[in-house]
């Protein structure tokens, strides 16, 4: 965990997680397979997320899921899980573990702060708790997960440097005024 920035009402930190992207049709066989191999039942409603301290399972769209594993794991475990899911002809699992970066934002001013970098509507009625969205933040394609008191934002690792700089720059300017 790295502290990225902390200003009144906004705290941003960066974490390292493992992740799998799963494509499939969301029908019974799919759900059973996933539950069998991960011990978690995949969310069924579009944009819905299920989470606890160890995982964050999201349905990104009608045939795409994202499973973020937050407890400590060895890469072999993840790769085995991926190959195991891929034995199923109707599913594609890809390991996303080291190609993404994960930021967590909390604080009472987090909405206003994030809206310096994105047009996305963060209001409760448009982006309720326990849902996710894919949108553009700081001109980068990101996924944003609403965990209630905090947001998790992920994007491609190659943008890490630029994204960190944009976050810090935004904090610097909003704090100065």
């Amino acid at each position: 965990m790295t502290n990225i920035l902390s200003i009144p009402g906004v705290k941003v930190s960066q974490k390292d997680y493992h992740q799998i992207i799963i494509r499939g049709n969301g029908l019974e066989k799919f759900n059973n397979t996933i539950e069998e191999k991960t011990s978690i039942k995949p969310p069924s409603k579009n944009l819905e997320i299920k989470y606890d301290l160890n995982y964050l399972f999201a349905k990104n769209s009608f045939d795409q899921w994202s499973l973020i594993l937050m407890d400590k794991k060895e890469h072999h475990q993840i790769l085995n899980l991926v190959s195991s899911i891929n034995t199923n002809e109707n599913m594609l699992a890809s390991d996303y573990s080291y190609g993404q970066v994960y930021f967590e934002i909390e604080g009472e001013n987090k909405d206003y702060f994030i809206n310096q970098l994105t047009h996305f509507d963060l209001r409760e009625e448009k982006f309720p708790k326990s849902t996710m969205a894919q949108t553009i933040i700081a001109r980068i394609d990101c996924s944003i997960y609403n965990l209630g008191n905090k947001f998790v934002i992920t994007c491609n690792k190659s943008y890490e440097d630029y994204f960190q700089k944009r976050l810090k720059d935004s904090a610097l300017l909003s704090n100065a005024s």
Partner: protein
Amino acid sequence: MILIKCPYCGYRDQSEFTSGGEAHVIRPKNPQSLSDKDWGEYVFYRNNPKGIFYERWVHSHGCKKWFNVVRNTATDQILKVYKVNEKRPDLSEFENTLKSPSGEPLVGSGNFAVKK
């Protein structure tokens, strides 16, 4: 910056989408059997009417799914959004009542529209 309703993600800013041109242009099942002219029509020709237009959009900076839109190209109003596998709404469903703000005549009444 219009607001577009992705059928999967809800209303989003236009900047998250990419326009996909005319909808319901089906790739011929047997391209080899088509004459050069007919094949050329499929590859190069698209309609561009002033007024009610059936088009496609993709949520390129979001869920990356394609969907169809009925839009009035004169006023930029989106009249209907429907999924790729849903039935195409009939033209009679839509009323082209609003005159474009610069006072131009309705679709078909002038020489502005590119006729099919």
